[in-house]
């Protein structure tokens, strides 16, 4: 057995063994068991994925043949390996975090069940990523969906959990059906269930079939990634799950949606026309905008983060769509850049969203409240949690030098490269790119507003409720779990030139072109001829600082740079590695100059804040999150359309009103325009069909007879026509 096979087999066995052991271990010990088993399995998966990414040699193994279905096969190519690597990293942090976090459930809910579902979910994620045939892939996918349902509905005594769980199950199964249809259609065409046979047989499919497969898989697997308009379940289901499970859902499971779409549409049946790419781009932009808009008016910390998942996945889709357009238009290198940016962002999202959800869980565990209007001032009581939340927020809103900035900057650059498109009708495509770019910019800026609100209202200022005053810092394992993800956010941000070559290995087989040369010129090449740096740049650049560190750092360089032609030798360039050095240097220099030289001996005293002249400023009188996000609410009122249910008036006397309570309800625009009409239509059909159920036995017997005759007739017709 190859080492990779051994790693995978051990990881899966650890998961199963851990799940079984949880049944016999006493409840208070289950969190530790869960943490150990989860960490061990994650590390093994991480090693397997990392090995393939570095070595580049795909792993393949045939399991056993099932009569009539073909052989079950496993394969770990670099695309799956990258997803596995990211999943392993996130799950490692989550598992460590769980050790401290799960203690709050002891005696309230069954930890044995949670442990089993959690470890089996990890196993099913690994199986989805290594499956190399339709049967195993779909079976693992279904297992993953059901386990997510069980985990979301873990706190089953709360009604909102159950409702969200059912919604998740319904929408995921609908999407799953679409995926099943597409994959079975491809298998029937190929006459085999193996992915390699599907890949070979896909070449001679007509445009209609290709469109069908694209639409079915894009929207089918898109459900898992929270693609608008199939996102209504996500902001409801992710927040009600236990804190560590929310991370697994928002950091790992959503990626599987991207994986499903990428596996089918980029690998098995590569898209070769522009229009699907533009569709992906458009829906990505819509997801990004709607996700962030609803995040802005949301005041439940975890629901806010879940809305941001929709937004961030939209940004990933924007990169994917741009890549598909570039492939179809014959720019394989640019396509590689766009796909790379998109997957980079997906990985980054896993890290910073994982970090944010963990910090939110930590706040929830310490305070017992998630509504940010009731929080505040936690930075003094929970300094580590606050710092980690801040890191996650800065990364998510794409501020340098953290990881979100790098990937979002790359996605923006690949959108800007639409300048090179030159096919018939390219003008229309360019305008779609421009609008996507503007949408992305608006989404990013709104995300910044939203995280100013989320961080500041939770951690800064005065505590706005009694609960806050008793809060204590999270336990050590929880801090370590968050710390791992915070470190990843920083490393993936300041070392992009080491991440890009790794990712390129996963992208290259899809587009047939490498993006390394187009993104990371070999400034550190010891060869003076600079074999891969264009001469125009090689001559001018020694004057600049791009080669600092050449003598002692490995790799190609620290600058992300896209070389161009004669008029524009450099198309875009950026280096977070040097940026962070300069920023830290500047901050230190300013600090020393100001503190030591300029204002030495000046005192700094702490006094009460200026309260604008009122007698005493109480916490309830300060600005709330609701007030902070009001401009968004007012400006985008056309989207939100809030409705006033009723005004409750408090009367002190007959004509003296002392207070009015105004409740405004906002129904999500997707629910309003998509989900409710679909639900209404389904209910109408069901009501019609209900007329058949009138309770007369004779009629039911007749139905059975008619149905049987129909089946026989159809079977006979197929038989005579010489069908399958």
């Amino acid at each position: 057995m190859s080492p990779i096979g051994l790693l995978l087999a051990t990881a899966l066995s650890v998961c199963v063994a851990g799940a079984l052991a949880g049944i016999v271990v006493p409840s208070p010990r289950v969190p530790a068991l869960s943490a150990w088993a989860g960490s061990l399995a994650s590390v093994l998966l991480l090693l397997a994925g990392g090995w393939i990414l570095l070595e580049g040699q795909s792993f393949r193994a045939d399991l056993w043949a099932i009569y009539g279905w073909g052989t079950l096969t496993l394969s770990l190519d670099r695309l799956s390996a990258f997803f596995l690597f990211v999943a392993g990293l996130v799950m490692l942090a989550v598992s460590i975090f769980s050790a401290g976090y799960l203690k709050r459930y002891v005696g309230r809910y069954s930890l044995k069940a949670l442990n089993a579902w959690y470890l089996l979910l990890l196993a099913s994620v690994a199986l989805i990523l290594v499956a190399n045939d339709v049967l195993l892939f779909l079976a693992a996918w279904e297992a993953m969906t059901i386990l997510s349902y069980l985990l979301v509905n873990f706190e089953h005594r709360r009604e909102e959990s159950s409702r969200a769980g059912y919604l998740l199950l319904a929408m995921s199964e609908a999407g799953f059906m679409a995926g099943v249809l597409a994959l079975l259609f491809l298998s029937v065409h190929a006459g085999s269930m193996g992915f390699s046979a599907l890949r070979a047989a896909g070449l001679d499919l007509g445009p209609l079939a290709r469109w069908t497969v694209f639409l079915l898989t894009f929207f089918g697997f898109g459900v898992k990634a929270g693609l608008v308009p199939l996102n209504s379940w996500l902001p409801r289901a992710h927040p009600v799950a236990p804190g560590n499970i929310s991370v697994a859902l928002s950091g790992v499971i959503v990626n599987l949606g991207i994986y499903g779409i990428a596996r089918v549409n980029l690998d098995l049946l590569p898209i070769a026309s522009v229009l699907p790419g533009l569709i992906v781009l458009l829906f990505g932009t819509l997801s990004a905008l709607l996700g962030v808009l609803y995040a802005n008016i949301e005041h439940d910390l975890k629901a806010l983060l879940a809305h941001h998942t929709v937004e961030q996945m939209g940004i990933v889709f924007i990169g994917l769509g741009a890549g598909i357009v570039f492939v179809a238009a014959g720019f394989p290198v640019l396509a590689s850049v766009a796909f790379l940016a998109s997957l980079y962002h997906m990985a980054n999202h896993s890290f910073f969203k994982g970090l944010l959800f963990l910090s939110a869980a930590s706040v929830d565990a310490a305070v017992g409240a998630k509504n940010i209007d009731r929080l505040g001032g936690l930075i003094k009581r929970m300094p580590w949690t606050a710092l980690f939340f801040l890191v996650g927020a800065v990364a998510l809103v794409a501020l340098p030098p953290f990881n979100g900035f790098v990937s979002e900057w790359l996605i923006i650059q690949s959108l800007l490269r639409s300048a090179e498109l030159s096919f018939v009708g390219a003008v229309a495509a360019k305008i779609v790119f421009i609008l996507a770019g503007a949408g992305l910019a608006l989404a990013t800026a709104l995300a910044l507003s939203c995280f100013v609100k989320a961080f500041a209202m939770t951690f800064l200022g005065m505590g706005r409720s009694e609960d806050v005053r008793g809060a204590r810092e999270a336990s050590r394992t929880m801090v370590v779990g968050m710390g791992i993800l915070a470190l990843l956010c920083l490393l993936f941000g300041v070392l992009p030139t080491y991440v890009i070559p790794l990712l390129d290995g996963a992208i290259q087989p899809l587009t047939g072109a490498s993006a390394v040369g187009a993104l990371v010129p070999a400034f550190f090449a010891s060869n003076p001829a600079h074999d891969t740096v264009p001469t125009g740049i090689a001559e001018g650049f020694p004057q600049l600082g791009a080669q600092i560190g050449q003598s002692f750092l490995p790799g190609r360089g620290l600058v992300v740079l896209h070389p161009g032609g004669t008029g524009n030798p450099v198309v875009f360039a950026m280096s977070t590695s040097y940026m962070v050095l300069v920023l830290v240097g500047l901050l230190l220099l300013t600090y020393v100059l100001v503190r030591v030289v300029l204002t030495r001996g000046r005192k700094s005293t702490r006094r009460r804040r200026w309260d604008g002249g009122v007698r005493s400023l109480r916490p309830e009188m300060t600005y709330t999150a609701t007030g902070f996000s009001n401009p968004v609410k007012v400006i985008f009122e056309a989207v939100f359309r809030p409705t006033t249910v009723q005004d409750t008036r408090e009367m002190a006397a007959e004509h003296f009103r002392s207070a009015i309570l105004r409740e405004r309800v906002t129904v999500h625009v997707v629910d309003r325009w998509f989900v409710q009409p679909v639900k209404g239509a389904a209910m109408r059909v069901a009501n019609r069909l209900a007329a058949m159920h009138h309770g007369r036995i004779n009629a039911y017997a007749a139905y059975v007879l008619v149905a049987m005759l129909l089946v026989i007739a159809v079977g006979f017709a197929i038989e005579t026509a010489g069908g399958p």
Partner: protein
Amino acid sequence: MIPYIVFNLMQVVVVLLCAPLASGVLSRMKEIVQSKQGPSIFQPYRDLWKLFHKDEIVSEESSWIFRFTPYVVFATPIMVTLLIPVLTNYPLFFAFMGDMIAGGFILSLGGFFSTLAAIDTANPYGPMGASRTRMVGFLSEPVFMIVFFTVSFVAGSTIPYIVQEKWVTPLVFFVTPSHVLLMLAFLMLILAEGGRIPVDNPTGHFELAMIDESKSLEYSGRGFALIKWGGHMKFFVLMCIFLNVLLTPWGLAADQTLGAVLLAVPKVLLKVFIFLVVIVVIESQLSKLRLFRIAEFLGAAFVTSVAAVIAQVF
């Protein structure tokens, strides 16, 4: 390599020293237009000097965010100065560290922290200013992006040193519809981001009407000095991008000699002065908009920029 480092540092020094002067000239000219005498053009320097020599008072509720923010607000415009052409028309030592988009993100790092610090004080007016600044921020971001698209379509690059020559070679390009519209859109952006009338009134003293100013109400002493200086520099850097990259890329040093670079300083200051006169005219002609009318102002900027990019695409 050494001259490139020196010139790059000279850019920083010019921005550091001249940014308060630009603000002083602007307010003095505005006062003169209003038939008042106004403070000396060196008043901003005196203010900074005074603030650096005062003790600091910090709100009890505030955390390290509040004390850390002035340094970020001060450092981020300097970082952008390293990336853009202030004095030379050839790239300098740190030019590879970021393009115009990265520069925008670096500036918003400072903005992010200053909004956080405003809420950190638990002062009732801070969060109000923070919320309003963010409103202006998220409305202007799409316009920035469209400007970058236009620039990228024209120059095939987002590196400011490469972009600057493309708009005026040949000179006829200066009056192409897309360039004219783009300049208009970017001018509106500078007014919004710099907190000038009609979006915000930097000389207002009424807390309920403040946007940018109310974020720093709790600052005093050296913290306030750094925030003020950072604000002057941010405005100056935005003007440099507008004047040296998009509008009038003339007067910059072309030779790698100290003399040429020194000679560029008065030329750039002259351009800034002329631009300040334009701003004074605009500020004196218009009144401050009501808060939610700002959306219309920036909406107009957005439409202008979209027209610019469409004129470029076709």
